[in-house]
């Protein structure tokens, strides 16, 4: 007759045809699937993978920028960067919460990250060598994230879609503060301009790769589109990113590091040179410049924080005991 929302996913795994039909009918009518609704196991599994991977990316994504908090060039920039990195922590937590509604405990998702089983966005395995990198990340990486995330506000899974609405609201500040850093440097001294150009040179291709392998090689596209947990293909999203970013680079007076980049009057899109997919797969497989460092930092944070988690649990237990006795 009723269920507790925290154990809403009970033995409904063996739904059979009727439930599967009802599920598909909901998808066809663009209705949301909610945690306690019946869903195919493959849908659940794919979503847990996608959402937790997304959550891990937000959490690991704090590290490259966090690296510059103590060295931001002014108090104003430091406050902005702190707020931005705090937002990314929030994004990770909204997403872990959404993932948990599918029945996978948060600790299990975190453990999968730490063991190397779960992936996160490969972009965060690149180092932030200069202050301009913080600008490039906000402008390019958050810019790419926005393009990825906006369609997901309409995805089929309710908790994921709602988390995305919150996240997207916060992202536009991230992109703008990054662009503003790039603008300031690009219009500063020769050395500052060169620093901005160098950051663009290093972050451009990894940002283009953020959308994942080309459609010709992407294995999940079709089923995920049917399930409405992926609304555009990798190449469609990538093209959108390039079309919107190239004119911005022109306004900045910076050069995109791609000699083959050109506007195609007929298609009304930019065309780019070949993407080095070897590099992409190498970084995904763990061989990027910072993979080991990023993962170790997360593991250390988790292990070094163990006593805090235990102390808080113990404190809560004692207080509960005392209030029972009173």
């Amino acid at each position, binding site marked *: *007759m*009723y*269920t*507790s*929302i*925290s*154990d*809403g996913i009970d033995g*409904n795994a063996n739904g059979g045809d009727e439930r599967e039909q009802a599920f598909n009918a909901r998808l066809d009518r663009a209705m949301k699937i*909610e945690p*306690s*609704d*019946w869903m195919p196991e493959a849908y659940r599994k794919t979503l847990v993978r996608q959402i937790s991977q997304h959550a891990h990316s937000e959490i690991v994504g704090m590290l490259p920028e966090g690296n510059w908090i103590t060295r931001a060039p002014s108090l104003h920039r430091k406050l902005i960067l702190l*707020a931005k990195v*705090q*937002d990314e922590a*929030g994004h990770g*937590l*909204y997403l872990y*919460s959404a993932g*948990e509604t599918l029945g996978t*405990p*948060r*600790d299990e998702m975190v*453990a999968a990250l730490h063991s190397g089983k779960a992936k996160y966005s490969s972009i965060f395995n690149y180092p932030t060598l200069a202050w301009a990198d913080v600008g490039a990340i906000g402008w390019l990486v958050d810019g790419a994230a926005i393009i990825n995330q906006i369609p997901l506000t309409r995805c089929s899974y309710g908790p994921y879609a*709602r*988390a995305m609405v*919150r996240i997207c609201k*916060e992202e536009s500040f991230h992109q703008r503060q990054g662009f503003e850093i790039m603008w300031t440097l690009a219009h500063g001294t020769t050395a500052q301009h060169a620093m901005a150009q160098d950051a663009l040179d290093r972050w451009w291709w990894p940002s283009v790769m953020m959308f994942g392998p080309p459609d010709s090689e992407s294995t999940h596209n079709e089923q995920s589109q049917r399930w409405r947990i992926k609304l555009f293909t990798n190449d469609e999203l990538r093209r959108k990113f390039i079309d919107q970013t190239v004119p911005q680079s022109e306004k900045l007076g910076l050069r995109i590091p791609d000699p083959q980049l050109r506007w195609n009057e007929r298609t009304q899109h930019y065309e780019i040179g070949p993407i080095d997919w070897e590099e992409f797969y190498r970084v995904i497989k763990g061989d990027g410049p910072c993979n080991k460092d990023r993962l170790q930092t997360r593991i250390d944070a988790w292990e070094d924080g*163990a006593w805090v*988690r*235990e102390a*808080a*649990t113990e*404190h*809560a237990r004692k*207080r*509960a005991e005392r209030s029972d006795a009173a």
Partner: protein
Amino acid sequence: MTKGWPQWEVFVRSEAGLAHKHVGSLHAADVRMALENARDLYTRRNEGVSIWVVRSEDVHATDPDEAEAFFEPSEDKRYRFPTSYHVPEGVEHL
């Protein structure tokens, strides 16, 4: 690995006069931490003037599989709506 902290559902009143609305969940060891975490997680941009937190296990919901039967009694009672009454022409304030 220690067992994780319990899960809480978070409800935020966005401004005085409005009802609290569910915004998401979080983990915390106790009520106080739940409220503070809820503030940091869900009201970083003036989204609220009041927060409720409830242990997730204490929130009970209707069963979606029985929703049709459960809500059926309210469906065929058109006479509960003002629109199912005929108002003669010229009659006002009704």
